[in-house]
């Protein structure tokens, strides 16, 4: 009886495991995740500078420019052959809205570059938050929630 139950559980779990594995093999999905990870790390780096945990104020603008470069890739990160993982199908159902949201992220990142170049901590903090919020706004609508 126990063996039969285990077999049923394994059979039920298999398709999901297989899908997850397939997602990991899809180079487009891996590329998307790599770019998103890069963006996230860029925020971490700037956060450390903003908190003065590292004494690298001049590198704020360097990181902001890197963010602004990479954020321009977002609009092209969702080709039809990259459906799956945590990206919700809505992304492919409303491409115009996705493009607008991606542009908002670009605009926010450009504003952060301007603020970082200027060097005023308060203005940088505001622009930093706005850039982060622009990312989160997309994630809320288009990304499956984390567990």
């Amino acid at each position, binding site marked *: 009886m126990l063996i039969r139950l285990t077999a049923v559980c394994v059979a039920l779990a298999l398709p999901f495991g297989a899908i997850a594995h397939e997602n990991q093999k899809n180079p487009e999905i891996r590329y998307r995740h790599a770019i998103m990870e890069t963006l*996230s*790390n*860029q*925020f*971490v780096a700037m*956060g450390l500078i*903003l*908190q003065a*945990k590292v004494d690298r104020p001049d590198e704020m603008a360097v990181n902001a420019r890197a963010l602004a470069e990479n954020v321009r890739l977002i609009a092209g990160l969702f080709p039809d052959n990259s459906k799956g993982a945590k990206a919700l199908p809505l992304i492919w159902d409303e491409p115009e809205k996705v493009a607008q949201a991606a542009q908002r992220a670009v605009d926010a990142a450009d504003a952060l570059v301007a603020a970082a170049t200027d060097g005023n901590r308060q203005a940088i*903090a505001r622009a*930093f*938050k706005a850039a*982060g*919020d622009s*990312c*989160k706004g997309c*994630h*809320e609508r288009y990304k499956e929630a984390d567990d």
Partner: protein
Amino acid sequence: MKTGLAALALLLLTGGAAPAAAADDLLARGAYLTAAAGCVSCHTDKENDGTPFAGGHAIESPYGIFYTPNITPDSETGIGGWTDDEFLAALREGIAPDGSHYYPAFPYPSYAGMTRDDALAIKAYLDSLEPVRQPNKPNELRWFVPGRSAMGLWKALNSPWDYAEPAAGLERGAYLVRHLGHCGECHTPRGAGGRLKLSQELAGSPKTASSEGAPAIDNSPDGLADWALSDIEFYLELGMRPDGDFSSGGMAAVIEDNTSQLTPADRQAIARYLKNLR
């Protein structure tokens, strides 16, 4: 004599301005406390570009949808003309000027710990706003939810939250977290009847079909154990977690409208209080 003259001159110079300055101070303090209490987050229908504090925001809950009321000083649809005592009763006891009870979707069990001075500073600030004529929307509650009259019994059994004294040196953080910020309303698990389980303060509430839940924000491994004080302060200021992710959902609004507006000292007080829980 010289001192006396100087004092007289100072009195003459400032005598007319002092009351105005005091009023400005009261309004500034009220604005700060209104932000700390998070009033605008709930009392603004941001989804439909509503006017701040004019209400209409839908709070979805296991009990149905509560629509927040207008708290601008409009005398017919808002809180215009309320006396100090009426405002205090509403804010800290959940009693409307007509004597009826509010549902605890309005977090008066938390606000009950707010000082009279702070509550009246908030009132002074709200009274200074432009009145907005906007009738309140009726709630859309589920069939099993009793009428407001039953809330009197609910309060007798449950409210206000009976917190233990905070540890020495953490009083300000406790006040901000427990009362003004009313963090426990989302982050503390609830027992029967919706009473907060204060022995598990800020230990998180589970996600359910009708509630998005809220994570633990005490100092447990599931909560903020891995966060430094400065990580918490930074999160409360700008919404970024140590891993680079940003706040979302209801917490994004809390950061935008509430914690980002606080002084660094108050954010630090909150962080110290949270790190001391558990």
